[in-house]
């Protein structure tokens, strides 16, 4: 009975909805033309703005300068955390990049040089071989060889050293929080919105407070990285533990496991594969953070990319960006191989040649041979500069050539899209009275999720208006909306094509895997090369960054259409086209919409980064706050971005959920 009701609920939008909608639109048109009568309804008045950013900034000042915890101040606490983290980080840094000096004085002689590049490559190659086999070993060795060959080794090792410390720390913290949330539902209830905020507030926004609390430098950068990369681990841990089959838990109880035994011996080993997904996420997000972290002193590859981007040295930026990408690919595949490593009994043929103990032995032998050897043959220790190659001039020249020869064509495309698509949308959103937008959002919220979503939608949009960022937010919505529209128009057809053709599918999977391992900043390089700064360049970067989930979810959605339905349609005489349009797409639609949802989330996070190429949206606000070290301004703008993200996410998820219920699909 209830199922049927909800069916009718979604299937047909009731008349009252369209009635109210029409009323709101009419009011909107009237208001638009009668702005002078009620200007406060068309544009949010300045006097009504709540000075939240100043409140936050003042609070931050108080926290840093005055907050006293009794025996020590808050700042002393944070600084001592930084001091603690400094130890492992500098040890890793010495081992991989700078060598050990055993003296705190700057310029002290290096007593023991950093691990030879040859040893690092061999050890990572062996690790790849140990985890998966020859193919992965070749890939990983190739990635690291690029670093040496293109002169990125030193920077890459600085980056790697912060990754090897940040990732285990982030994973452990996320794991512990996840277990706590799993065990205590009340804690989970509190933690979830915090995680939502952490994942939707743009990274830039919390760089400033991190800077204030932990100072400038690699440690602060690593802390920012952990804040950014840890939330998925928490979520994955909760989910993975919840997915442990109920009968295994029952068995554990029957066998008389204590709570700790249950966790150690049943839940964690059984959930291990899912947990590794979280570890992989932490690695990828940490690498994604590399460039941004360099803004507060991380150094390494991120700093190289950032400084070349500022100099518009395209070639250099591209090579350093590729170095991050190769590092990401290598670490991504290694962690995936670790998760997928076959667990087979000794009688099986695929029992690994290289056991863990043999691998450790081989790694130690490699180090103990190559370290002394590099003393006599320095080329083994530090990759010789004379053997380095660079393609940066080629790229610089290529860009120059394209810009000289195709300037008019590129410009024509850019102008056409700007004038005919982007500008009208922007103008429409900016001119629509704010009360009307809020009314429409609340109405849609009510339609999708009754009062809960209506209140949520209204509260978050009112917040944006109240802190005085309405027009900037509308520019964000416009840029995000247009980009997502394009991304969907590109991504969904590719997904449909790939889902029906195995070869295209394989090619697409490789392409989107690569797209998703690229750090977001790297997307800026080519678009700036060709289209310089501005909304259009920003939009292209956003599309490129956010298209992957649209493709991935479309493929997934179509592949999840039950085979017997396709069979039945064929038996009824449907043509392939009819099957696609009348069977596969309608059933895959909820899943595709979840992909669009992901696309929106990624687009929003990318938008903040595109502030570097001169957009005028919330992202710019956050970026300005970062350059001016204005905590309040950055956080308020960041929370506004989060508000947009949360409204979009809740609305689309709810729609998709209802649609899935209606189709009788698993949620």
């Amino acid at each position: 009975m209830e199922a049927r009701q909800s069916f009718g609920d979604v299937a047909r939008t009731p008349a009252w909805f369209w009635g109210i909608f029409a009323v709101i639109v009419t009011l909107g048109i009237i208001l638009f033309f009668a702005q002078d009568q009620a200007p406060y309804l068309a544009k949010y008045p300045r006097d009504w703005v709540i000075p939240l950013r100043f409140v936050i900034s003042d609070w931050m000042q108080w926290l840093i300068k005055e907050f006293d915890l009794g025996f020590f101040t808050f700042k002393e606490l944070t600084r001592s955390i930084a001091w603690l983290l400094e130890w492992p980080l500098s040890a890793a840094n010495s081992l991989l990049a700078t060598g050990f000096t055993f003296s705190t004085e700057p310029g002290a002689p290096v007593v023991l040089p950093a691990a030879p590049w040859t040893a690092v490559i061999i050890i990572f190659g062996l690790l790849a071989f140990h985890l998966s086999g020859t193919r992965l070993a070749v890939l990983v060795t190739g990635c690291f060889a690029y670093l040496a060959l293109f002169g990125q080794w030193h920077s890459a090792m600085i980056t790697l050293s912060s990754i090897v410390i940040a990732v285990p720390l982030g994973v452990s913290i996320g794991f512990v929080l996840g277990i706590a949330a799993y065990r205590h539902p009340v804690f989970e209830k509190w933690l979830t919105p915090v995680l939502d905020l952490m994942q939707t507030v743009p990274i830039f926004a919390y760089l400033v407070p991190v800077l204030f609390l932990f100072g400038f430098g690699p440690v602060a950068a690593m802390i920012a990285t952990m804040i950014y990369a840890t939330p998925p681990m928490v979520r994955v841990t909760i989910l993975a533990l919840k997915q442990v089959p109920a009968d295994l838990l029952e068995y554990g109880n029957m066998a008389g496991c204590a709570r700790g035994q249950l966790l150690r011996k049943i839940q964690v080993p059984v959930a291990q594969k899912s947990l590794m997904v979280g570890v992989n996420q932490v690695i990828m997000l940490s690498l994604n953070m590399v460039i941004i972290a360099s803004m507060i002193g991380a150094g390494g590859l991120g700093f190289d990319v950032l400084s070349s981007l500022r100099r518009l040295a395209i070639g250099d930026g591209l090579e350093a960006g590729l170095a991050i990408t190769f590092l990401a690919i290598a670490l991504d595949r290694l962690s995936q191989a670790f998760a997928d490593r076959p667990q087979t009994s000794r009688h099986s043929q695929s029992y690994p040649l290289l056991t863990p103990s043999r691998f450790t032995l081989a790694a130690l032998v490699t180090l103990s041979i190559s370290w002394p050897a590099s003393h006599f043959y320095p080329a083994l220790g530090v990759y010789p500069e004379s053997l380095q190659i660079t393609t940066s001039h080629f790229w610089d020249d290529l860009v120059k050539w394209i810009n000289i020869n195709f300037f008019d064509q590129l410009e024509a495309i850019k102008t056409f899209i700007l004038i005919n698509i982007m500008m009208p949308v922007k103008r429409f959103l900016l001119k629509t009275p704010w009360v009307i937008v809020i009314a429409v959002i609340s109405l849609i919220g009510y339609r999708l999720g009754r009062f809960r979503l209506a209140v949520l939608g209204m509260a978050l949009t009112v917040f944006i208006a109240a802190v005085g960022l309405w027009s900037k937010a509308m520019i964000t919505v416009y840029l995000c909306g247009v980009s997502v529209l394009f991304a969907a128009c590109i991504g969904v057809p590719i997904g449909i094509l790939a889902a029906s053709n195995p070869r295209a599918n394989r090619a697409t999977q490789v392409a989107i895997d690569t797209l998703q391992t690229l750090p977001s900043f790297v997307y800026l390089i080519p678009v700036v090369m060709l289209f310089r700064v501005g909304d259009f360049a920003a939009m292209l970067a956003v599309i490129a960054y956010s298209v992957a989930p649209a493709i991935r979810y479309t493929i997934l959605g179509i592949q999840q259409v039950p085979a017997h339905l396709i069979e039945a349609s064929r038996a009824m005489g449907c043509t392939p086209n009819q099957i696609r349009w009348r069977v596969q797409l309608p059933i895959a639609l909820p899943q595709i919409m979840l992909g669009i949802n992901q696309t929106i989330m990624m687009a929003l996070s990318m938008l903040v980064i595109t502030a570097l190429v001169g957009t005028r949206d919330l992202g710019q606000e956050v970026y300005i706050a970062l350059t001016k070290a204005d905590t309040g301004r950055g956080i308020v703008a960041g929370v506004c971005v989060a508000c947009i993200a949360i409204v979009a996410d809740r609305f689309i998820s709810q729609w998709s959920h209802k649609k899935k219920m209606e189709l009788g699909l698993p949620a």
Partner: protein
Amino acid sequence: MTRTTPSPPSALHLQGIWKIFGEDADSFLQKFGPSPADSDLQKAGLIAAVRDANLDIHRGEIFVIMGLSGSGKSTLVRCMSRLIEPTAGELFFEGQDLLAISEKELTEMRRHKMGMVFQHFALLPHLSVLGNVAFPLEIQGVEKSVRQQRALDMIELVGLSGREDYYPRELSGGQQQRVGIARSLAVEPDIWFLDEPFSALDPLIRREMQDEFLRLQGLLRKTIVFITHDFDEAIRLADRIAIMKDGAIIQIGAPEDLILNPATDYVAEFTRDVSRAKVLSAKTVMRPVTPGESLDETLAHHTKVQDLAHRAVNSDRHMGVIDDDGVIIGAVDNQAVLDVLVGNEPPRTN
């Protein structure tokens, strides 16, 4: 009903056990008394998975709880080990009040006195066969060499020697359940719960596993609570059967009792298609011996009709039925056997 202490042969004693799912089930029972009406439950939005279960499970017997899905049989067996906490009622195991003991004592009891086999095996995917079977001993902190030897013995007992190093997913369903059985026996439990252990298996394998189960029980003589939705399986294995419907036990009896005297139409529905020759014994179909009658041979009173049919139908010999002491208590002639075989109304015994 007055509270009674269970008599010695009873291993497990349940009295007035209720399990009600839903919010505030406890306070609901306090308000509506020990046996609430359906309408009250429904109004409160509660679901009674087990209603007023009263059982005595005897030492060394195979007690089968039979019911269709949703009848509450799985909930009931979980109440017996407090995997699910009963909402109301009394539960005694070997004379000890299980509902009164602490969490710690309960854990100890589960470690040493209870074994359980699960429908979907519930083997730990990251452990080998040996690791799985040794697991309950590992939890107890038994020394490695001891527990491995014990596990190897168990693996041999269920006929899986040579596969100690295999991982669960490398085994067939039947083999996996053998591991599940070996694992549950490793601690030498006093009571053995089997929750639809063979339901996930193919019919042929299921039959083989039933034979295997009977063989093991012949060796071990455990007190067994066996859950199934398959009536054929129930009558094949059970010493006694409890039939459940909508959370309530509607009849308890030996297979023969259920067939001869079904308590309700629901029970009769189950028994209708059962081959009577497999269930009814000589004692049930015998007639009194006419004084002076000469008997050609004798057979034990518990011989199933199926097993004596061949002899009875192919000859005119008169067969006497003897009880455990060898005393002749009746005679079977071929007409009685034929009646059972062709499905004529069986003789009622009451």
